[in-house]
């Protein structure tokens, strides 16, 4: 994929990936990498930021004698995701307009 997903879009994708179920770091990375190309080192700072902003919660669950840290979306996180989804619709439309030479502004 040629396009870099970073910043707000990446935040949105992480929230989206956690919308239906919590996940732990490795699992979440795998899931996201099935859709977009990100480096292993990209995800951790994003998770930290979303945690600090209260959009995610984390909890530990023992597994196989170790502690797995799970990340789950919060109510604020769901709210943010709704906002991002709206922003994305507008953004997607604008990009498609430009790519199509600006001739199909009321497509679909």
């Amino acid at each position: 994929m040629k396009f870099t997903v970073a910043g707000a879009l990446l935040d949105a994708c992480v929230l989206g990936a956690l919308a239906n179920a919590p996940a732990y770091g490795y699992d979440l990375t795998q899931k996201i990498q099935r859709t977009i190309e990100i480096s292993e080192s990209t995800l951790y700072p994003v998770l930290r930021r979303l945690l600090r902003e209260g959009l995610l919660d984390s909890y530990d669950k023992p597994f196989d004698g170790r502690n797995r840290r799970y990340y789950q979306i919060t109510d604020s996180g769901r709210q943010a995701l709704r906002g991002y989804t709206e922003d994305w619709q507008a953004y997607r439309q604008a990009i498609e307009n430009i790519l199509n030479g600006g001739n199909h502004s009321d497509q679909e």
Partner: protein
Amino acid sequence: MTKNEFLSELRYALRHLPQEEIDNALNYYEEFFHEAGPQRERQIIDELISPNAVASKIIGEYAVHDAERSRRKKRSRPLWIAILAICASPVAVPLALSGFVLVVALFIVFLAFGISGAAFAVSGIVSLYAGVWAASASLPTGMFYIGLGLLAISISGSLLAGTALATKNTFFALQKALGKILIRRGAK
């Protein structure tokens, strides 16, 4: 590089962050390696590029968070974190090295000016003395050397004063520029 070497270098690169941040990061990556399994260890280390690359992202995110949190307080701490972010990044060493060499070259030039300023002073004083001594034998000759000496001394005065001023201003300008660069990088 083995997984353990990677993790301990990562811990070292993060050493100036609060302990909680360091532990969280190390736990995350230890778990990550463990979940991936020993077969993927090599591949993951390659994809992570380097402990410093990983650390600089973590430090960068922390710096932004810390800067926003302490916006009303002194700005010196986020500045320090930003300095560490640059130091942890892979470009840091060649960048710092060339910057350092440039600064040294600049100060050598200033030193050279300073030395020639001093040389003018010395020869000026010698000429002055010789002129005074010669004046008793031949006034025109003495006056010539006295004049030469005074000229040399005034040149040296300008050189030394100019060098001192240039050195001081360059030094402070460097400090300011460095500060601006680091604040911008820390906020990225």
